[in-house]
């Protein structure tokens, strides 16, 4: 009974956990709830690791498929099954490992929360859905997972349903995701109608067998591949919060912090990137759409970064940072560096989760306070949190040696060398965003942990370091933030230092990226000097960002923000109000729909339908009234009607 | 004046003369016969054996004062007695009193209207008699006469049925509705009262009822309704009612004689040996004699049977006479078809 046979347990265990917690247990059985809530995902992690080991030992690099049952029969036959190949292996490791530690952290964080059982049920359900998403062997199972995580994000964002804002934020997230899913579905329909299958393996073979099919015009003036790529990307933007549909992620911070960490940093938001990389075959056949992906990614990155600087809520800053980093990943995917996108996804999962959990323990310590202007000098009170937070900040900023540096540098390098039009421009934007990232992250660290405490006296008194159950996952993730960088050091960097190319992750993921004859993206090898220059540029960006932040916020604390606001009030206000994107959407989309609904209600429903009904009723009443008039009961009248009838008959007969 | 009209006028004249004589004779007979039955003398002061009593009464009627009751409906009050005469003066048109004869070189049948729907004419005209009673009772604006007229109309309608059915029985063997054929039939064969005794009996009773003669004279039952429908009528108008009643009695008995007693014929007498005119007169006198017997019978019955109660009258009319008449109809029809008659 090899681990691979038990592979279906990986998604099943968390789902079972959700069922047990949600349906069977009661709030009072807290220890049991914790055992189930954390235990089952942990077990799922072990099974996953065992399966990974056995898979890599035996079957690799071929994909291992385990079909559970035939879901639908007939021409559109789909079966439910799981697929383990390089790409899903990486995702599997990231999701289960980070997910498990966040569960451990949640035990501490949500310890004395009333809805503890409900929280763990939702979290397990989310884990199950996410695993379905990444392990599915065809797009339908992926889509089930896709919707599952959407639902869980709605449930978890709206976890504090007593308060006013969380449910609203939940709804907003769900609706925006649904809009994205709409595009995703159209893409799936297009795939199915063209190739008749949604199974990853078969689809890949069919496309490669006859690439010309993909270029046939499909709709909206786009070729089939372009159409599918575009609409799948629309789904990705919805799920991974890119430019048009990113508005829900900042509001999603209304959920508990571990949720933000798990869903809105590590796993769910990366689903879009995973899906794009999974269908890289189609994206390679639609270069113009890849360019669109890249451009959108870059734009989102710079856009979110600028907003991040002006935010004062600790979680909002991290949220915009996530949006920005996701922009990076899509930039990588857009220029064809799929390995770089997945590599950054992995590293980002570690340090962003660590940052979120760190902010969680800060908030926990500050008794729920999230505004960094009321914090300061927490270094002394929360040493472990400060340490892990600092490490992750350095990682995300891109300090060499840490995870962030390697993955971000690879993306910038790939963008610089890509055949994509305006590659240099995208590289520039990416570099500037890197600097900005370093800048706002260090601003966050300096304002929170350095300087003197700006909170209320009672809060200061309350300050205490989080319990071990919370600090342990922080340390694990911090170590992960460091180590995860080393496994995927880009080959370009090895060459730059003349060393033997030991890019382990690159070779590991190579088989996933389909090589289409005639489309070999192929890293054309830049000269060693160029490589070194690129590395130098990204290091410079990081150092400048940190130095700038230090000069502004370390030395002058909050006064820096004030002076900045004085000098450019309008810009400050604009950034603070997040470019008023929400208001824009409200005016463009929500209000017209509301108006349309009102029209439908007032005009069509009331005037036309009710009106018509009333008119009919009125007519019957009138004729009834008329009819009543004739029944006088007077026999002579009746005789008259008789005679009138005769006359009519006569008239009709005669004429 | 074409011979036909002349002949017709002669016939009508003959009948009218006879009918007008009936009333005075009956007046007298009506008083004398019962007297003898009851072993008393009766009127004998006026003329020998009281024969002129008729004329005396007639004169009395003429000079009596015409009383018009107040509130009476003048129009109908005056119309009623006239209507009484209508059936009497018209029903004799269809009664034959002789074979078709040759008078003055012209062959005429000795009946005023020789149509093959003759009997029906008789019956329909007879049925008009009801109106005089009804209107009289209604117009004289008093309860008694109203009750009298309601009874009269009910009685007349009910017994008319029985009468008509028996008349139909009498016609079936002759196979025609023309009375001359009936008489010819009887001249060859037996008289009908022999072949249809039941029919004759029902006809007799119905005839009494039609003319409101005693057993059925509820309409003017003296003991209950003072004088019934003609309570308010005085002199001349009362005389008209009186004459009307007697005439309808005569015509009905003439019909009876024609249907059941061979009409103008006598079994042993062969008419062909006489000349036309003599045949006519002879036939008429035979008919008159027969009618006289019948009238005597009327008077005779009058003073022997008590008056019927109204419900007995109705029961007799509907539950006894009508079924018997229908029975007779069935029997006669069967015998005729069977070839016995």
């Amino acid at each position: 009974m090899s681990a691979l046979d038990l592979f279906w347990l990986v998604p099943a265990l968390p789902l079972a956990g959700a069922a047990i917690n949600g349906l069977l247990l009661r709030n009072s059985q807290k220890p049991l709830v914790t055992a189930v809530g954390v235990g089952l995902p942990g077990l799922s992690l072990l099974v996953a690791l065992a399966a990974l080991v056995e898979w890599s030992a035996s079957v690799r690099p071929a994909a291992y498929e385990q079909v559970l049952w035939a879901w639908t029969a007939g021409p559109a036959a789909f079966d439910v099954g799981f697929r383990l190949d390089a790409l899903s292996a990486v995702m599997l490791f990231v999701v289960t490992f980070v997910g498990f530690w966040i569960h451990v952290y949640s035990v501490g964080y949500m310890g004395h929360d009333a809805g503890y059982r409900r929280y763990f049920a939702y979290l397990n359900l989310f884990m199950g859905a996410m695993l379905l998403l990444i392990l599915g062997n065809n797009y339908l199972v992926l889509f089930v997972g896709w919707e599952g995580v959407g639902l869980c994000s709605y449930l978890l964002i709206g976890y504090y349903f007593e308060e006013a804002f969380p449910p609203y934020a939940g709804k907003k997230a769900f609706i925006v995701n649904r809009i994205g899913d709409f595009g995703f579905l159209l893409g799936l329909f297009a795939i199915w109608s063209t190739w008749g299958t949604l199974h990853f393996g078969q689809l890949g073979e069919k496309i490669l067998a006859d690439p010309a099919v993909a270029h046939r015009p499909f709709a909206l003036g786009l070729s089939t591949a372009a159409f599918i790529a575009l609409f799948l990307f629309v789904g990705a933007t919805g799920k991974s919060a890119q430019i048009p549909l990113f508005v829900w992620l900042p509001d999603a911070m209304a959920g508990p912090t571990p949720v933000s960490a798990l869903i809105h940093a590590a796993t769910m938001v990366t689903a879009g990137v995973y899906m794009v990389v999974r269908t890289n075959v189609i994206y390679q056949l639609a270069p113009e759409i890849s360019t669109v992906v890249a451009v959108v990614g870059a734009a989102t990155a710079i856009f979110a970064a600028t907003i991040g600087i002006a935010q004062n809520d600790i979680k909002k800053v991290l949220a915009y940072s996530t949006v920005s980093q996701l922009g990076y990943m899509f930039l990588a995917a857009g220029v064809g560096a799929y390995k770089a996108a997945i590599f950054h996804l992995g590293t980002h999962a570690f340090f962003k989760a660590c940052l979120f959990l760190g902010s969680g323990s800060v908030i926990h310590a500050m008794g729920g306070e999230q505004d960094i202007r009321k914090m300061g000098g927490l270094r002394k009170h929360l040493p472990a949190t400060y340490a892990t937070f600092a490490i992750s900040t350095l990682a995300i900023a891109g300090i060499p040696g840490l995870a962030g540096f390697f993955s971000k540098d690879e993306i910038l390098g790939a963008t610089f060398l890509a055949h994509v039009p305006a590659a240099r421009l995208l590289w520039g934007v990416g570099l500037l965003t890197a600097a900005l990232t370093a800048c706002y992250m260090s601003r966050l660290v300096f304002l929170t942990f350095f300087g003197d405490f700006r909170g209320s006296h009672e809060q200061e008194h309350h300050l205490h370091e989080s319990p071990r159950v919370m600090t342990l996952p922080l340390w694990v993730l911090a170590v992960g933030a460091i180590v995860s960088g080393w496994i995927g050091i880009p080959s370009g960097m090895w060459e730059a230092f003349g060393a033997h190319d030991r890019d382990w992750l690159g070779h590991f993921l190579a088989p996933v990226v389909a090589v289409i004859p005639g489309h070999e993206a192929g890293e054309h090898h830049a000269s060693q000097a160029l490589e070194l220059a690129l590395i130098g540029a990204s290091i410079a960006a990081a150092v400048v960002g940190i130095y700038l932040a230090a000069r502004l916020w370390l030395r002058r604390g909050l006064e820096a923000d004030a002076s900045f606001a004085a000098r450019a009030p309008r810009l400050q206000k604009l950034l603070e109000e997040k470019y008023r994107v929400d208001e824009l959407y409200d005016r463009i989309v929500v209000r017209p729909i509301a108006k349309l609904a009102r029209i439908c209600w007032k005009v069509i429903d009331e005037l036309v339908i009710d009106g018509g009904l009333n008119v009919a009723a009125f007519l019957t009443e009138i004729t009834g009234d008329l009819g009543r008039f004739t029944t006088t009961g007077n026999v002579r009248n009746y005789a008259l009607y008789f005679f009138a009838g005769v006359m009519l008959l006569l008239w009709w007969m005669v004429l | 004046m074409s011979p036909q009209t002349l002949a017709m006028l002669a016939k009508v004249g003959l009948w009218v003369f006879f009918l007008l004589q009936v009333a005075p004779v009956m007046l007298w007979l009506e008083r004398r016969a019962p007297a003898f039955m009851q072993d008393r003398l009766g009127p004998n002061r006026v003329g020998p054996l009281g024969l002129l009593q008729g004329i005396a009464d007639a004169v009395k009627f003429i000079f009596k004062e015409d009383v018009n009751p107040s509130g009476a409906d003048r129009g109908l009050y005056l119309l009623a007695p006239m209507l009484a005469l209508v059936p009497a003066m018209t029903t004799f048109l269809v009664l034959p009193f002789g074979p078709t004869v040759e008078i003055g070189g012209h062959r005429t049948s000795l009946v005023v209207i020789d149509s093959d729907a003759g009997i029906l004419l008789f019956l329909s005209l007879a049925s008009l008699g009801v109106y005089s009673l009804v209107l009289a009772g209604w117009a004289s604006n008093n309860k008694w006469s109203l009750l009298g007229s309601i009874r009269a109309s009910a009685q007349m309608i009910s017994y008319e049925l029985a009468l008509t059915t028996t008349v139909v029985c009498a016609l079936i063997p002759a196979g025609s509705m023309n009375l001359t054929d009936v008489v010819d039939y009887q001249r060859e064969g037996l008289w009908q009262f022999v072949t249809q005794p039941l029919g004759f009996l029902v006809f007799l009773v119905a005839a009494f009822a039609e003319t409101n003669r005693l057993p059925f004279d509820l309409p003017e039952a003296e003991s209950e309704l003072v004088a019934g429908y003609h309570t308010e009528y005085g002199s001349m108008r009362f005389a008209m009612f009186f004459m009307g009643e007697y005439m309808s009695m005569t015509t009905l008995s003439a019909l009876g004689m024609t249907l059941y007693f061979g009409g103008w014929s006598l079994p042993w007498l062969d008419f062909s040996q006489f000349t036309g005119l003599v045949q006519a007169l002879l036939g008429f006198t035979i008919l008159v004699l027969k009618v006289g017997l019948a009238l005597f019978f009327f008077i005779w019955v009058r003073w022997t049977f008590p008056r019927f109660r109204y419900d007995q009258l109705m029961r007799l009319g509907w539950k006894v006479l009508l079924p018997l008449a229908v029975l007779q109809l069935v029997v006669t029809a069967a015998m005729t078809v069977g070839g016995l008659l």
Partner: protein
Amino acid sequence: MELAAFAFFALLALGSAIVVVGHRNPVYSTMSLVVALLATAGLFVLLGSPFLAVLQVLLYTGAIVVLFLFVIMLLNVGRERPAAGRGTMQTWVAGVGALVFFGAMARLIWESYGEAEAPRLTEEFVATRGLAELLFTTYLLPFEIIGLLLLVAVVAASWVARRPTPDEEEEAP
């Protein structure tokens, strides 16, 4: 001669008809109905069916109208009050309606028949025998049905007009 007879009977019929409709006293209108019926009987004779004429007199005037008189006397129907307010409107409408009807029918008849002469009366046409044969051959079934109809009418009439038995007395409003 026939024209004179027709004119006499026609005028008689019309006059009495108007009296039937016009007169307030029910007995007068009934008697004028009798006159109208007799006039029609006369017309039947002119139209070559003496049997119908006699039947009409015997049946209609002899029995039916007497029944009318009987009921009028039984119910002691008084003089009729002139029509109430709304009635007059109905009177006008009925009047105009009748006139329009007569006009239309007259036009219709005049257009279709005009001066068409009736065929000469034949002895055979007038005889009752022909009618009798027709009655008992082609019209035998209707003859039986009419018998049934009369039975039903008699039963119905007697049931409807019966004096309610004591237990029914209080049920009537």
